């Protein structure tokens, strides 16, 4: 039963924005499922729609939304059917929370960090201030911030400590899913390794699931069990980490992997010539075709999503190997 298998199931999600220049198709027909207590990385370049996808899941939408449709099921419950008040009361920060991009710089400079971590619990769980502080204290222990720091202001903490505080804010309500948007991008490598260790430990101990949004492939492997690659508003590949990091399927994924600098070995780095298409008027065929080294005639048509050994890939190269039907399990099996 899906309810037990998946924490999140997204189907045909669309999110378009109205701008002066036209309609931006930021999220364009995205479908995926997340197994419970797993970590899924959404990889993509800036402007590919990955942050919009996160906002669509949390329904944190700006005013210029044009289209917002699709199905989002959390623990089997269709949350798209809920009205805004119910969604805020029952879902946002209660069952799905988020560590937004550059969260460490988004803390309120004039409030003690303890108050800021206690606040989501007071607002969403209705606890008293004392209970909220007690919960914040527990969260600080979890994420590795000394308890004495509860009384400090953000400017009294280092970048890594502030990032931990932002993670504590997302954790305090014990959500079943946490969306992490570039959680380590501004941090030093030792701090980054520390935060990644903390996230892994929290996942083991609390059974929560993660969506990690990033463009940093090497760092994402520290957490990833599944990888979804986004390009121009669409998911072009979803795979388990073992397959993805050794043999990515989509030509775009392959090119991305070839652009990752390595500490050891002598391989030359490649980059992808050209730029992603505009999301105002994406091409009608495959959106990567104009930059793809393996392009052929068929690429003028929009490729469907092919299923192949439990992976999903949106590329005509897999027309004969893959199937169009959804396999019974509907999810990617982790490698044994």
């Amino acid at each position, binding site marked *: 039963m899906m309810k037990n298998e998946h924490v999140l199931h997204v189907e045909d999600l669309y999110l378009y924005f109205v701008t002066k220049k036209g309609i931006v198709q930021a999220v364009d027909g995205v479908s995926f499922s997340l197994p419970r207590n797993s*970590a899924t990385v959404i990889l993509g*370049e*800036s402007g590919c729609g990955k942050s919009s996808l996160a906002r669509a899941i949390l329904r944190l939408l700006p005013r210029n939304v044009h289209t917002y449709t699709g199905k989002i099921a959390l623990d089997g419950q269709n949350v798209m059917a809920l009205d805004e008040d119910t969604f805020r009361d029952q879902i946002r920060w209660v069952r799905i929370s988020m560590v937004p991009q550059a969260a460490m710089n988004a803390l309120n400079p004039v409030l003690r960090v303890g108050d800021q971590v206690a606040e989501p619990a007071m607002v969403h769980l209705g606890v008293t201030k004392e209970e909220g502080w007690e919960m914040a204290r527990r969260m600080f222990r979890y994420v590795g911030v000394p308890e004495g720091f509860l009384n400090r202001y953000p400017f009294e903490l*280092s*970048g*890594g400590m502030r990032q931990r505080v932002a993670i504590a804010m997302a954790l305090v309500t014990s959500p079943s899913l946490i969306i992490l948007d570039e959680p380590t991008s501004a941090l*030093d*490598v*030792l*701090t*980054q*390794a*520390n935060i*990644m*260790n903390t996230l*892994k*430990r929290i996942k083991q101990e609390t059974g929560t699931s993660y969506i990690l949004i990033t*463009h*940093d*492939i*090497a*760092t*994402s*492997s*520290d*957490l*990833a*069990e599944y990888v979804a690659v986004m390009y121009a508003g669409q998911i072009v590949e979803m795979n388990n*980490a*073992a397959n*993805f*990091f*050794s043999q990515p399927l989509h030509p775009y994924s392959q*090119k*991305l*992997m070839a*652009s*990752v*600098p*390595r*500490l*050891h070995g002598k391989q030359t*780095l*490649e*980059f*992808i010539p050209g*730029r992603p298409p505009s999301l105002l008027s994406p091409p009608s065929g495959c959106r990567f075709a104009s930059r793809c080294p393996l392009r052929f005639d068929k690429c003028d048509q929009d490729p469907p999503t092919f299923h192949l050994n439990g992976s999903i890939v949106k590329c005509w190269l897999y027309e004969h190997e893959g199937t169009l039907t959804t396999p019974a399990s509907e999810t990617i099996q982790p490698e044994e």
Partner: protein
Amino acid sequence: MTLTDPAPVTTHIAPGEPLLSVRDLRVWFELRRFGLGVAGYVRAVDDVSFDLYEGEAIAIVGESGCGKSSLMRTILGLNRPREGRIIFDGRDISRFTREELRWYRTRVGYVQQDPYGALPPFMTVRSILEEPLIVAGVKNRQARIERIRKAMQEVKMTPVDDFLGKFPHQLSGGQQQRIVIARAILLEPRLLVADEPVSMLDASVRVEILTLLRQLQQDHRLSVIYITHDLSTVRYFSERIFVMYAGKIVEKGPVDEILERPKHPYTWALLAATPEPDPRNAHMFREVPPGEPPSLITPPPGCRFHPRCAKIIQGVCEVKVPPEKEVTPNHLVQCWLYDPDVSPDPPDM
């Protein structure tokens, strides 16, 4: 020498002599207390020496707050050193007059970290690139345009005319960084200082920019100081690595030596924390030294890494500052583990 002259290629240095030579450099910042004068110093750079040769690229690697930016700003002539010398092309830049500094700044290019922040938002690409030429005294308008075109072609912003009238916000991150690089090489400098030039960019664009910088460096025999906290990119862009910790260069050596046979425990920690795309990473925890880098106002005595070091030799590391030892040719390390009198059996990573 007048600034209106085209950049002279003549040099004061003999073959085999370094282009830039930093000796016993200390950059300290005063901490002032109101009415009480100087209360202490932030020792951002403390006793740093190195040579940079013509056409060579070096990488300075370290965490934020280790002093790498202060070192860079001092080399650019923006900070005055407290002690020590910086010899560029046979002349000590800390004794430069205003006029000499203006000349020096035509010889040194600077590539900033955040391209969007480094480009004035209200100026077009053309006026951004024209300004350094005007400051350097290129009076002829036509000559200025020619040099702008040439620089734009070198950074592969073609067709040039499509970009000249654009404002920074109309360019992608990669294009903005190309304009920053074009501005840095416009006056045909001999030394390029690149401060985390790719950290704000996407993975694929990162490679594009690093490739471009490497090509410019080789085409013009530029000397480059590449400042980064990301060890994984240095192999592609430099010949030597300097590892900096708490104001000191703790290890320096050729790229392959440092990456394959690192000696300093801090370098080990940096390498162990640098991820490679490997699915096994998700199933293990990384070893990270405890604590955070020390305060530069009251740095720990002895070796500055000793409070976080797993290999500490009690009674030595926390007492005496380690001397620089050459472990293999050109590979120098400041660590007591490699002093035969203190540690007869040096470890490997």
